[in-house]
């Protein structure tokens, strides 16, 4: 769980993957449909979907002969994942500032 948030971040750092992610916000899509609407080749779309799936951002399911990809339907879990990272950032930043401005800094042994 500790690296979950950063996996998501790195997965979305790529502009092509963000484009695919945005397209999936319109609803479930097959690989071919995504490749047809985006300036990305079909094998590249497949590769990007694999990364998004491993990062826990999309899920896939068989639909007849096709495989449909969709966003994971848990916005609150995503919010929590983001906040987990935010509070880690925030708390370490807070500690630095609190120590840098402490009037009693260095006057006591820790």
């Amino acid at each position, binding site marked *: 769980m500790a690296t979950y948030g950063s996996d998501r971040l790195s997965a*979305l750092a790529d502009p092509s993957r963000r484009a695919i992610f945005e397209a999936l916000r319109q609803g479930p899509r097959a690989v071919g449909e995504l490749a047809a609407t985006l300036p990305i080749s079909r094998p590249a779309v497949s590769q990007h979907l694999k990364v998004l799936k491993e990062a826990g951002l999309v899920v896939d399911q068989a639909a007849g002969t096709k495989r449909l990809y969709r966003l994971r339907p848990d916005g609150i879990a995503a919010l929590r994942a983001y906040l987990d990272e935010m*509070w880690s950032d925030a708390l370490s930043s807070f*500690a630095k500032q609190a120590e840098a401005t402490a009037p009693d800094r260095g006057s006591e042994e820790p």
Partner: protein
Amino acid sequence: MTLEPIRKTITVACSREHAFKVYTEGFDSWWPREHHLGEAELVEVVLEAGEGGRWYERLADGSECVWGRVLAWEPPGRVVLSWHIDGDWKIDPDPARASEIEVVFTEKGPGTTRVAIEHRAFERHGATAEKVHDGVDTDDGWTGLLKLFAAKAAS
């Protein structure tokens, strides 16, 4: 949907009084600049002193977004804040649908303070969760988060 609270602790080399003051009055001095809601550049984040105080961001275009309110104000030991930002990364002003953040400052020795954060009650954002579960609509809980993830990843 039940989600575990987020719990984080850190030990800082300063008094409890100073830690509380920096956390509250000095909120803007340490808040990571990339974490904000609006499109425009972040000017400042303000945590108003006292119960009922507002906790908000002010942006370069003059707009303000209220993140929450001060629910409990007990210097120098404890402050509790509400969090009104839902899974769509939008402001939901209904207190019944806000999660909350408790920050506890504990003296561990002379000039040493432990700061513990607990962000809890995510299930109160449940209205959004249901909508997200129902949804093939485009407003699916990822809109603002995606932007934030992207901005964070690019920074």
